[in-house]
């Protein structure tokens, strides 16, 4: 390593680096972090490419840090053409702060963009924010915005826009983003510090804040502050994205054209035609018939005929999306943790993944941590063990256990319940199944949280979407006062571990608390997580430089048609 680089690094470490950043470099030097992890964490905390490669050089790694997220491929890109995209029909609004459905978030996410990007390796990258720094123990985050980003109407994106947007997202009573920032950030904490500088003052230390403002918080689109709430669609869905809205037929078809002044470089495609489909069946059929090029998501079964078909490529992407099979810790039949653990032990997870899910899933071990989360400590794999299950049941005096699983009619949920029913039978457990309509399952009376079935029935199975970090899972489903804590499981030790995990800034500490949390959840099993979904989606073979997104966004900035 040459003297220049060493001097540069030392200068940085003495004069500029925050304690967090220094700590990170220390961990790298001490061998506690490998290269990939260092890059991931470094990006998250806003270390510049230069600093990161210098640090890596310090430990003898000569390869440069990876480029930004939007670099195009090296092959010869063909410019031109309109790509036809299919999305699931949505019933609600396209207004960013109201986004709540897969179809609408996909639609708004084409002309709209976000501050940061959580990529498919769970690495956080700059997007509309060029860099960021944490200080005061991760309670104050300062974001530097990218300069020269032009909205579709020609205006430049500045801190004024970001501040106005985030005040709305964290403050408006109908904002769907409130759950992301619950107890973490309020409108008063969003402050402009300069033309391109925004400061977020958090109510509690959050090491993963940049993840929270990434595209996985799909409401957080940056729009011009001059656009009043509820007028975004009418005024043309103005954003910073590679394509801008030309015309549309409400909820049916949207035509977009290239945004010539796109900050990431001129997009190869001329335009995008988006069609909303009533059912994924109709959408899959349209793709097969060659009337679509890209679809947002189809079921694993619907993807079957595309496998091996030369006209299509089938893309796969493991995600953290999962089903929570909850058992109430205060239900007379289920209150003994040995009983719940017994139920968890009857499930044949590999068989489920191979059979029911046709291989499109990764193993779940009854913890909130998806194995691909960097902060996930390694845990014992859950194996099926009927003998142990029976022992646990008799130890708990529950040899004739019987209970009802309540779920709703979505994708494979009823069949998953049927499989659990059959597995339980082998240990002598009598399980009944109740399948409700969506409206009933998610409906509720005046006191919603006390009456809605999905949070209150003795045993439920509910679908949870992908999150880049497990924060929401922890605070909403596992914490004692979590608003979506269906098992009604209250454990002070778990709460303490969760709190420590959330405020931890370095990987070591996160892993330590992750291990504590996992030990508790594997022992007491408030929630059974048997698998995490792998998205399997076909795309027309002529579409190049396109990859799946973990929450069904469709990103087309560098996509081209062969």
């Amino acid at each position, binding site marked *: 390593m040459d003297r220049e680089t060493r001097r540069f690094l030392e200068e940085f470490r003495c004069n500029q680096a925050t304690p967090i950043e220094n700590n990170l470099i220390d961990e790298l030097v001490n061998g506690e972090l490998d290269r990939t992890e260092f890059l991931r964490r470094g990006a998250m905390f806003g270390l510049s490419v230069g600093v990161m490669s210098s640090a890596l050089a310090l430990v003898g790694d000569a390869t440069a840090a990876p480029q930004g997220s939007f670099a195009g491929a090296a092959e010869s890109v063909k410019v031109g053409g309109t790509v036809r995209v299919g999305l699931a029909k949505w019933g*609600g609004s396209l207004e960013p702060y109201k986004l709540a459905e897969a179809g609408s978030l996909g639609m708004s996410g084409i002309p709209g963009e976000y501050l940061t990007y959580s990529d498919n390796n769970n690495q956080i990258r700059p997007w509309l924010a060029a860099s960021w720094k944490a200080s005061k123990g991760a309670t104050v985050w300062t974001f530097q915005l990218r300069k020269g980003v032009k909205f579709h109407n020609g205006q430049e994106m500045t801190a004024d826009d970001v501040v106005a947007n985030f005040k709305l997202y964290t403050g408006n009573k109908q904002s769907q983003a409130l759950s992301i920032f619950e107890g973490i950030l309020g409108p008063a904490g969003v402050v402009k510090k300069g033309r391109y500088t925004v400061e977020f003052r958090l109510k509690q230390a959050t090491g993963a804040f940049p993840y929270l403002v990434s595209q996985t918080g799909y409401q957080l689109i940056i729009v011009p502050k001059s656009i009043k709430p509820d007028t975004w669609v009418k005024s043309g869905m103005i954003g910073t994205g590679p394509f801008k809205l030309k015309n549309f037929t409400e909820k049916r078809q949207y035509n977009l054209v290239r945004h010539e002044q796109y900050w990431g470089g001129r997009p190869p495609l001329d335009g995008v035609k988006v069609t909303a489909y009533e059912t994924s069946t109709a959408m899959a059929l349209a793709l097969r018939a060659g009337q679509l090029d890209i679809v947002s998501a189809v079921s694993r079964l619907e993807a079957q005929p595309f496998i091996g078909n030369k006209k299509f490529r089938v893309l796969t992407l493991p995600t953290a999306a999962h089903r929570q099979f909850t058992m109430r810790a205060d239900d007379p039949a289920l209150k003994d943790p040995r009983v719940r653990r017994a139920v968890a032990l009857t499930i044949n997870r590999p068989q489920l993944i191979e059979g029911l899910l046709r291989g499109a899933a990764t193993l779940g071990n009854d913890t909130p941590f998806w194995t691909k989360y960097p902060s996930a400590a390694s845990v014992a794999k859950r194996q099926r063990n009927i003998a142990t299950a029976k022992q646990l049941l008799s130890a708990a005096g529950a040899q004739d256990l019987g209970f009802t699983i309540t779920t709703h009619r979505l994708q494979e949920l009823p069949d998953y319940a049927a499989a659990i029913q059959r597995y339980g039978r082998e240990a002598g457990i009598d399980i009944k199944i109740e399948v409700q309509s969506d409206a009933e399952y998610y409906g509720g009376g005046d006191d919603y949280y006390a009456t809605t079935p999905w949070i209150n029935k003795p045993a439920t199975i509910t679908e949870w979407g992908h999150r880049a970090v497990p924060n929401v899972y922890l605070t909403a489903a596992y914490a004692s006062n979590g608003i979506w804590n269906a098992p009604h499981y209250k454990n002070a030790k778990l709460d303490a571990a969760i709190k420590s995990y959330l405020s931890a800034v370095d990987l070591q500490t996160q892993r330590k608390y992750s291990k504590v949390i996992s030990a508790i959840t594997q022992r007491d099993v408030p929630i059974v997580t048997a698998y995490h979904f792998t998205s399997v989606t076909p795309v027309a073979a002529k579409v190049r430089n396109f990859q799946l997104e973990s929450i069904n966004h469709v990103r087309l900035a560098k996509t081209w048609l062969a």
Partner: protein
Amino acid sequence: MLRYILKRLGLAAITLFLLSVIVFGLSQLLPGNVARAVLGQFATQEAMDSFNHQVGADRPAIVQYLDYMRGFVQGDLGLSLASEAPVWSILEPAIINSLKLAALAFVIVVPLSILGGIAAGLRADTGSDRSITIFGLSMSAMPEFVTGIILILVFTIWLGWLPVTAQWDEGAGPGTQIKHLLLPSVCLALVLFGYIARITRAGVIEAVDADYTRTAYLKGLPTHTVIRRHVLRNALLPTLAVVATQTSYLVGGLLIVEQLFNYQGIGLQIYLSAQQKDFTVLTSGLLLLGVLVLIVTLVADIVYGLLNPRIRFGSAE
């Protein structure tokens, strides 16, 4: 004849009024929160209260009904609760779409099934009769979602002759539109074929046996004239009656087919608004559908009256 028409109009008006009360009552049955359905399962209590107040869903039912009817009569259907768009802008294209599909299905099925029914009736109890009847019976017994997907597989995926969804681009000409609507229309035609053919067949058999037919033969008229003049007209009467009763299904009962072909018809639109507890769209959708069906039935009744000499020349009804 005029009295007949007026009486029919009057009855239709009363029926419409009753329908509005029933429909409104139905939509008020939707329990719980409009807000919950629209804002989603993860919305907060505050968000929901704010929304409910904003759209006036927290007022008493009678007030909402009167308000609504006043608007309906004036042509103002209000705004959708789920999106902020005017109800009419959501329903109008849906109704037009449903009418187009129904019209095309009608045009396909009526001539074919009448011809089939006549052929079967004239050759009653022979092999051809049996085949036609059994074909019709089997097709109408198969659920339309199954025949639909088989049609799609064969004609769009494997043969590639027709478009897979019934959705065309803005400004497409009638030719393209028909091409897109062909498969769903055939799907519907298959369901109705057996039903209409059977009624026609029964009418033909009855007419062939009737006195006036025998008289016509004895008079020396050729077969096809006999058929055209006597048998046909009398076979058409019950057919018309039956077709009129199928209107509500043809226009509003197709939501499964509409889903499959990604076609924005009124049936599907009503289904969606029921799911989202979008009162305004749901109520207006049901009422407009009712108006449509009543109009078609009225027209069918009038044509029936014209064809049926007993009514045309006035006798107790």
